[in-house]
């Protein structure tokens, strides 16, 4: 036991140091966003002045938070709805073109998002969705679909068919089966899909950057990024730190709560890889 302890100590020190490297940037930002620093709104004493100055930036933090929440919420709802019905259809029904359609959905993965944005910019203009948060949410949803449809298909396929059949015998329609029996059974899959959609939409930078040009409709990452260097060319590092924390906090909290589901998403995706 003693020899084991001697052997294990370097291991603990080494892995502990690694963990510190990974956690340090986040912790440091969190601490310094409320700590006194020259050149920020919080120049002496501890407090939340950086957050206050963040909240007064242009249209106000609440506006950007609301924009981000709208985009993320809409993306999550759309992704959940489409992948739920899509996954159900792919898993339970045989229809002509089923495999082709599924492949087509997965093919979205092949197209690099960054190179598509310029045609998308023009297309959304033609649809009258330029400069609109709904347009951003639609684009983000499309890029969530391959993973989420795949995930929901696996979730449905892992449920024994006898369950549907029993419900059918009891007089359920296929929508009834989905609603009453299957949705409770695929809930873990739905949580995974929703979590991934939220993280992607909340954090996305490129789509709003290109598709939105009215600063009142900026999402939070865009607003925080633009905030640097707009106050007479001087970067307000304190407010940027506060902005990063506002951006990161929901993600970290959700991640810690739902870590099991996050890992599950990788298991299903990578196993087929």
């Amino acid at each position, binding site marked *: 036991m003693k020899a084991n302890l001697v052997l294990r100590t370097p291991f603990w020190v080494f892995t502990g140091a690694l963990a510190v490297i*990974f956690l340090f*940037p986040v912790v440091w930002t969190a601490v310094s966003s409320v700590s006194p620093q020259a050149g920020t709104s919080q120049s002496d004493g501890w407090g939340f002045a950086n957050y206050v100055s963040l909240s007064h930036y242009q249209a106000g933090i609440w506006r950007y938070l609301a924009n981000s929440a709208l985009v993320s919420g809409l993306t999550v709802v759309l992704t959940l709805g489409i992948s739920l019905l899509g996954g159900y259809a792919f898993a339970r029904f045989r229809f002509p073109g089923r495999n082709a359609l599924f492949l087509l959905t997965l093919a979205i993965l092949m197209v690099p998002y960054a190179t598509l944005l310029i045609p998308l910019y023009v297309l959304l203009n033609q649809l009258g969705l330029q400069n609109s948060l709904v347009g951003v949410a639609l684009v983000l949803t499309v890029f969530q679909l391959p993973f989420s449809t795949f995930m929901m298909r696996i979730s449905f396929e892992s449920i024994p068919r006898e369950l549907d059949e029993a419900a059918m015998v009891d007089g359920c329609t296929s929508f009834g089966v989905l609603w009453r029996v299957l949705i409770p059974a695929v809930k873990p899959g739905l949580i995974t899909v929703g979590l991934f959609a939220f993280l992607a939409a909340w954090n996305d930078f490129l789509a709003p950057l290109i598709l939105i040009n009215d600063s009142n409709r900026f999402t939070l990452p865009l607003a925080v990024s633009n905030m640097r260097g707009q106050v007479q060319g001087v970067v307000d590092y304190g407010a940027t730190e506060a902005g990063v924390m506002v951006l990161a906090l929901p*993600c970290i909290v959700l*991640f810690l709560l739902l870590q099991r589901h996050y890992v599950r998403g990788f298991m299903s995706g990578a196993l087929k890889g």
Partner: protein
Amino acid sequence: MSGSDWPLLSGDQGVNLPENYQQAVSNRFFVDSVIFTLKYTVITTALLTGLGLGLALLVQQSTRWKGLLRTAFLIPSALGLASASLLFYVLYSPLAGPLAPVMNHFGASFLGTPNAALASTVFLIVWRYAGFYMLLMLVGLQGIPTDVFEAAWVDGATRWQTFRRITLPLLRPTLALTTVLSVTGSLLAFEQFYILTKGGPDNSTITIVELIYNVAFQGQNDLGVAAALSVMVVLALVAINVLQLRAVRRTDEN
């Protein structure tokens, strides 16, 4: 679109076929950005694959401590790339960063020279994605049946032999997946450079996607040329991915 004269504000102005591609290739930053993007891709892919595998081996067994470690490594992956870039923007700043006094003392800076800027960005990316690749590697490692390792142990193989002769070959599908993901991701790098370096210093860190963005929305406002660039990037990506998969398959046959 890539064949049309298409300014940002006035829309489609008719065919402009070879010129768009000629203009795209002769852009002042085209060659530099291609070289820079390739360099960046090679560095990040090597680092992420190596580190991902290393971390995965480190936390493979499930004990309470290793579970905590996994969570610690994964937390950066929950942050968005944009938030992570902003975070490091402050961290690297010569005014507010925690290492600023030390760096100022030595007259060095994180983003001041081309090489330092590249290294700093690579560190940010490795920090953000190492946990993600660790997770992929863990999944791959779990797919290897334990009796193979037991057989090796019975045969008296050392740890290093087991790793070289058993773990690595059996992990090849996962390694293929991670390199394809990392190469594709790095070739399309944008946010980290857009936020952290703005392409500087001296336009040394312009990636291809950044070039597309600049051509389309900053200065030239030429969607046609930008689309031509995009088409070239897609073709190059497809070619690179096919080559990679073929290379993996060839080693499979040997």
